């Protein structure tokens, strides 16, 4: 156990989820905890972390009832708060002492929490509804543990064991954002830019898909490589489904160990921690703790818990549809069970069917209510989709690949940039190009972004009635002589690092202007 705590401490991170509505009686405090990482921490420590967080939340709520505290900066730790659902809080405690994490933006960390939550909701529905379904909390705990562990551990070595506790403790490297990621934005989608003709073809395909599924209330998401081409979902659902697709469904995700241009799979060169030796002896400890606590549920749940983020469990079927054994197999036909996802806005339950042809991934969401006899009805829908749309899909794939400029399609030489539109869509220099930047530049940008985020929040608070977003322009010269620039205008944000720009500010501003005119249709051109 001692060894284990050393192990996790070296990760320098704690993550907990707790429900303020639970465990209000003395002696029942443990009931609050829905999730705690590292799990092998003594309960006393866990409770103290949660107790502190709860205290802070209650305290800050006195002054700001709508938005309680967001972050505490202590001497050695940062506490990042995120209220995922009302009264359900996610708190991440990050060790500041480690230099690599020091410059990590708070905002990026919060986005991680947000992403975990939205993915969880996508597959399991809201935590609150789960708690209502099963008040003891055993159900949600048994789901949260594997889910978050799967999420946090990047795609690593092949996972052969079934016992997730074993996975959990064999020292997987956690994937946390660092300053290296400051030229990307989590929780946004990356779009493929297409010409009008291709766009019409895509739309035509989307419509055919919708019509061939038989019901009008189905939705679709079309991806090319790891980029979004089309969606008919609401923005929030689009983001969570897109995130999942990029994590697990796209051709890159399917062939693990693929090329590294997609940021989500990129091994983080900066935080390369030597793999820790396998220490499994502590597994039994935590195992026992939870076994004893949820003894009644454990037997059933351990087998029933689905792990949508489990690695390497999706594969391409013969018919082109992606299948996974995560949700088990159908007893009758030996085909794998199609997952069901929840839409955030309507809370509708939808079957998730994913089809892949070369680089094209199409996700079709069919309402569960519209399919009468489960898998059988679904396979009919799939057949129909293939009949009606397969030709179109071939054509669209061909058209898109023709126009596709490769991994570095959106690279603009001389610039390292990040463009965020409305906090939903982003585009950035390819990660491989960002890697060429000096550490100083990245650290400076990381700081700058933090600054801009603060500014944005202030603007939001002060002038909430005016829907005109704050305009902002900051140019900073980093220690190494690079220009680090941020501009926001009408909901659009541009971050940029110019390392080879010469001395004058004028020149830097000029470069931004050029970039803005060329690639953003002049949105950031102030004059």
């Amino acid at each position, binding site marked *: 156990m001692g060894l284990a705590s050393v192990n996790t401490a070296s990760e320098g991170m704690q993550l907990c989820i707790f429900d303020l509505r639970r465990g209000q009686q003395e002696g029942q405090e443990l009931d609050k905890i829905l999730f705690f990482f590292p799990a092998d921490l003594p309960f006393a420590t866990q409770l103290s972390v949660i107790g502190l967080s709860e205290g802070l939340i209650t305290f800050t709520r006195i002054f700001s009832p709508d938005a309680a505290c967001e972050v505490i900066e202590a001497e050695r730790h940062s506490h990042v708060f995120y209220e995922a659902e009302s009264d359900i809080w996610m708190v991440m405690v990050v060790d500041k002492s480690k230099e690599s994490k020091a410059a990590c933006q708070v905002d990026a960390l919060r986005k991680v929490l947000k992403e975990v939550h939205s993915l969880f909701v996508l597959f399991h529905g809201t935590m609150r509804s789960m708690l209502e379904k099963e008040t003891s909390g055993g159900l949600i705990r048994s789901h949260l543990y594997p889910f978050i562990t799967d999420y946090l551990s990047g795609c690593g070595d092949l996972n052969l064991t079934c016992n997730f506790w074993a996975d959990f403790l064999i020292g997987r490297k956690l994937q946390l954002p660092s300053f290296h990621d400051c030229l990307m934005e989590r929780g946004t989608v990356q779009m493929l830019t297409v010409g009008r003709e291709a766009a019409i073809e895509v*739309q*035509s395909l989307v419509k055919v898909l919708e*019509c061939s599924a038989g019901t009008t209330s189905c939705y679709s998401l079309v991806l090319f490589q790891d980029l979004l081409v089309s*969606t*008919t979902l609401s923005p929030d659902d689009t983001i969570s489904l897109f995130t999942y697709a990029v994590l697990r469904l796209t051709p890159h995700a399917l062939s693990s160990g693929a090329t590294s241009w997609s940021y989500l799979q990129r091994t983080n060169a900066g935080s390369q921690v030597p793999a820790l030796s396998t220490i499994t002896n502590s597994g039994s400890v935590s195992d026992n703790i939870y076994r004893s606590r949820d003894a009644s549920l454990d037997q059933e749940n351990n087998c029933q818990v689905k792990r949508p983020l489990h690695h390497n469990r999706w594969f391409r079927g013969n018919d082109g549809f992606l299948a996974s054994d995560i949700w088990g197999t159908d007893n009758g036909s030996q085909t794998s069970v199609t997952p069901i996802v929840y839409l955030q806005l309507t809370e509708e339950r939808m079957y998730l069917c994913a089809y892949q042809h070369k680089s094209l991934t199409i996700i079709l969401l069919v309402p569960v209510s519209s399919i009468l006899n489960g898998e059988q009805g679904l396979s009919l829908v799939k057949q129909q989709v293939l009949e009606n749309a397969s030709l179109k899909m071939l054509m669209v794939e061909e058209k898109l690949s023709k126009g596709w400029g490769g991994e570095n399609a959106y690279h603009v030489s001389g610039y390292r940039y990040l463009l965020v539109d409305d906090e939903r869509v982003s585009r950035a220099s390819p990660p491989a190009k960002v890697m060429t930047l000096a550490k100083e530049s990245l650290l400076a940008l990381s700081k700058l972004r933090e600054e801009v985020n603060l500014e944005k929040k202030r603007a939001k608070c002060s002038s909430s009635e005016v*829907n*005109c977003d704050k305009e902002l322009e900051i140019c900073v010269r980093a220690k190494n002589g690079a220009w680090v620039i941020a501009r926001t205008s009408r909901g659009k944000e541009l971050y940029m690092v110019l390392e080879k720009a010469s001395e004058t500010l004028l020149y830097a501003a000029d470069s931004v202007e050029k970039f803005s005119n060329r690639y953003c*249709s002049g949105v950031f051109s*102030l004059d």
Partner: protein
Amino acid sequence: MKERNTTSTLKRILVNCSSQAKEYGGCVAKKVPEVERDMCLKEFLALKNCMQNVCLTSVFCYIKNFSMSANASSSQLTVGLSGSGGLSHAYVQYPPLKCNLPGSRGLYYDDANKLLLSPTSDQVFSWKTVPFSPHVAATADYINEGPVLSIRYSLDAKSIAVHRSNQEIQFFQRETRETFTHMCKSESESILGFFWTDCPVCDLVVVKTSGLDLLTVSFTSKSVNLVETKKLSVNWYVYTHGSRLVLLASGMQCKTLTGFQLSSVGIVRLPRFEMVMAKSDANSKPVLAAEDVFIITVYGRIYCLQIDRVAMQLHSYRFYRDAVVQQGSLPMFSSKISVSVVDNVLLVHQVDARVSILYDIFEDSRAPISAPLPLLLRGLPQSHTGRPVNVGESLDRNSSNHELMFYGDDWTFLVPDLICDVASKSVWKIHLDLEVISSSSSEVPSNLEFLQRRKLEASKTKQLCLAITRAFILERRPVTMVAKAIDVLVSSYSHSVKTCSNLKETKVDEASASVGTNASNSSRSAKDESRVGVGDKSFNLSASDSDDQSREIDSRDLQKSGKENLLGAESSRGEVQSSSLHTQQLGLGNNQLNANNSERQDSQLTSPAISPDEMYSCVFVPVGEEIVGDPSYLVAIIVEFLRSTNSEKIKVRPNIYVFTIQLLVRYERFAELSLLIINKVLEPSKEVAMQLLESGHQNPQMRKLALDMLRQLSLHHDYVTLLVQDGCYLEALRYARKHKVTSVRPSLFLEAALASKDSQHLAAVLRFFSDFIAGFRNTPEYQDYFRILNEMNTGLAV
């Protein structure tokens, strides 16, 4: 005896083909109220096949059987359709053109001038058949007494030539009544016939047993001059003015044919070719008769149809400049066959079976476009009969005025679309009922394709196409099917736009076509075809050439002729003159028609092609009104429409985009809408931006898209105004300075600045305008706000 014979064959058939007969019968019985084209075709073909096999040796039996089955089906039809007024794919309109004159010595048809001629002892009466009107008055011209074998007016209508005997043709000048006679030189040859031509070298072509004589006719010298002789032994000949093609038959069986095309660009000799004739047995040698060969002009291409009585097939040949290519055969169900061409649709009249079968030989398919149905008589006064008249029914129920026997022996089919009833001296014009043809087809895309090729009643056809498309969408057919139908309409439109611009170069051509008469059509197509034979510059047409290619050739051909006109080549100039002459004549006719019938105004349309605008106003908007619930189906179809127009490079007006936005906004499909806007599927325009702004009340994202669009379109004034409205007056000012927008009133900015209660900003705005607009300091606005600003500042100071 005969009776018994047939019953025995019938018996044989019933024994041998009972299963097929049962299937066909069952199929028909199942569908009886709705009669469709190709209804139970599969079963019918199976039965037919079987029957054919059974009575292989007896042609008679076959025909008999067919006519029997045709009768049976038509009687079913009358049963099934008597309520709906009777349906047939083609009809003749009552009343006919009556050419009944006392002392008439027969009826002649001059297909070059489209005149019906009826000579009496010393006069010849002529009726114009184009445009066809039953009330047209006859014109009389004087000729001398004498036998008449045929009469033709010259192309300039100034003189008349009368074929008197085997040796003699007599000429009359209409105005001066001058006359002279042209005699055959030698006794050994006799004149088979003659025709006038617009060929540059000669006026008149006389076909003799020894070949062709090309002559010029001069009334001043009262003589004809021989220009050229084409020596050839001729048994009989066939000529139509529409094709300018004369086919000369020679040989024992008369199946060796030589063709000459005598068009305004010159004379082309076609290669000699042999007709295919099946032999009933080794020794028999069937002889081809002139009645067995038809020249038809369809889509500007010239075909020849030949009856093969033994094989019971109608062989078709297509003429190219340097080749004659056999194209395939149509079935014959009657020993007497006649053909008509109406609006480029081929009608094969199976006279004995009393039905007509329609073919559209645009594509290579030899499948009929409709089931065999009889021609129908329409517009008969109520007193005659309450219901449509069908096969062979005598119309003469109440009145003995005229006896009309459908498909009777007295019927003569005139080129291209007239029927002359010799007994009652009446002439009928065949019309197609496109509505019936299209309603009997379930394949909407191919049906639309067929309709889009019809030129005669363009506006009617267009309305029909629109109605079909509307219904097709309202029935919520699969999007892919609707997409196909839309593709057909759009490509047809794009084709018509292209040819239209080409025809502008060749000027009058299109105008003459716009008369919408068959004459102009066929003359134009003849010109097209004649251009195929222009010179060495033209293309080599191989035997394997497909229809698509030849369609291309048609349009290329037109372009070429346009160029030729520009070059001012002699020959083409001549052609221009002749064709403009032609149009003048037709134009006159058209005016008369307009005087008669004002609703023809609409039919000035040259083609039933549907423009995107009409698609919008006549299809999408009405459908949008009728469709209830989720609009995604309609949006899907609009997207298909945009795809189609985009691939054909046709511009679409913004109203369709605005409509799409309205549809999507009504059901709050903002995600899709913003994708459509971002990807410019809905092309940016001011209208689109304004519509987006309107929906911006519901979704701020839309407002943003609208603003972006305005900026990209450089609609500075609107952009600045909207920015100020949003309260972003500083940004608006910056933008105004950059793009020198002075049209927005300063007071707007000042009000916005005042509303923000920031005296610094107000001061800045005030200062900006006093710099930006000369003389601003002297306006009352400046004074007002200067005062306000001072008050604010003193207020602060206090």
